[in-house]
């Protein structure tokens, strides 16, 4: 069995046990409740960010991008909810998640979405907020929108198939 130079699943699990996270998650309502909040967070995130992306691509023309952007804080709150609840899943069963190719892909796509978002705000957001309600934003902004939508749909798809994998140690890419 290879050793993991980065994560120590046994220690993470011990930490979750010590804090009572594992006991809560394994209680009858723990896991289902956290799943519910994970999905609600995802809905807020995809609602705010995904619809903004779709508008940049020309859906629902006439809706002002500047006004639509006011909903982004709901997306951020949803993202935070999903990250926190996702963290609870991972620390409760670290060996089932850390070495799971679906979760690895999901996290990689989230990283890509993050880089895409930073690039969007650094290089395109100003011109997007000046776009008229009936107009398309510049091509550069539309490319950011395509990448963002693809990433978040990919995140949803990967999340959905996490349970299809029962990871052995050899799915540890960094070991």
């Amino acid at each position, binding site marked *: 069995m290879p050793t993991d130079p980065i994560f120590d699943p046994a220690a993470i699990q011990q930490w979750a046990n010590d804090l009572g996270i594992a006991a809560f998650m394994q209680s009858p309502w723990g896991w*289902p409740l956290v799943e519910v909040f994970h999905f609600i967070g995802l809905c807020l995130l995809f609602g705010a960010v995904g*619809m903004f992306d779709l508008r940049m691509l020309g*859906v*629902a023309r006439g809706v002002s991008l500047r006004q*639509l952007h*006011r*909903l982004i804080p709901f997306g951020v709150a949803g993202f935070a909810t999903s990250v926190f609840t996702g963290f609870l899943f991972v620390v409760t069963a670290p060996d089932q998640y850390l070495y799971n190719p679906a979760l690895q892909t999901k996290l990689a796509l989230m990283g890509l979405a993050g880089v895409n978002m930073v690039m969007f705000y650094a290089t395109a957001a100003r011109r997007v907020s000046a776009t008229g*309600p009936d107009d398309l934003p510049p091509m550069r902004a539309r490319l950011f929108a395509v990448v963002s939508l693809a990433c978040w*749909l990919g995140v949803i*798809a990967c999340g959905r198939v996490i349970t299809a994998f029962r990871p052995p140690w050899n799915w540890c890419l960094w070991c």
Partner: protein
Amino acid sequence: MIGLLAAIEQWPLSIWMREDPYAYFVALIFHAFGMALLVGAGIVISLRVLGVGKGPDLHRLRGFVAVMWVGAVLAIVSGLLLLSAYPAKALTNPVFAVKLASLLAAALLVRSMAATTLSAAPRDPQPSARSRVLAALALALWLIGVAAGKLLLHTYTVLTVS
């Protein structure tokens, strides 16, 4: 009732949904995509009518109703496929009725908002108190529908097959 559900389980389509290594997961993924589009667009319309991001473009939000339709079709088709694999699992679970009723009610509320509040918006961009109450209700129903959907996995009592 259970006899009918047991008969559905024997349809070639149902057997294929259960036995193909990919079919069930592909349907799950498209169900999630459909729900994301339906609920995502529904939440955006509800929040804006509720008063987040006030602006003269309110009536143009009807454009997102089309996104809801695309999402609904994806979710319903994939949902029927998932249902066919284990019909008794969902159809004997009251939580499934809660899911369907909440989502249907939320969608109808948004549709009625599109026909009333959003249509009146160019002349009167400030939704009435009544519209905002309906929007808050729709928002709650979207989230209850999603929550009930998630709880299906944990609340079924009958699976059958085998």
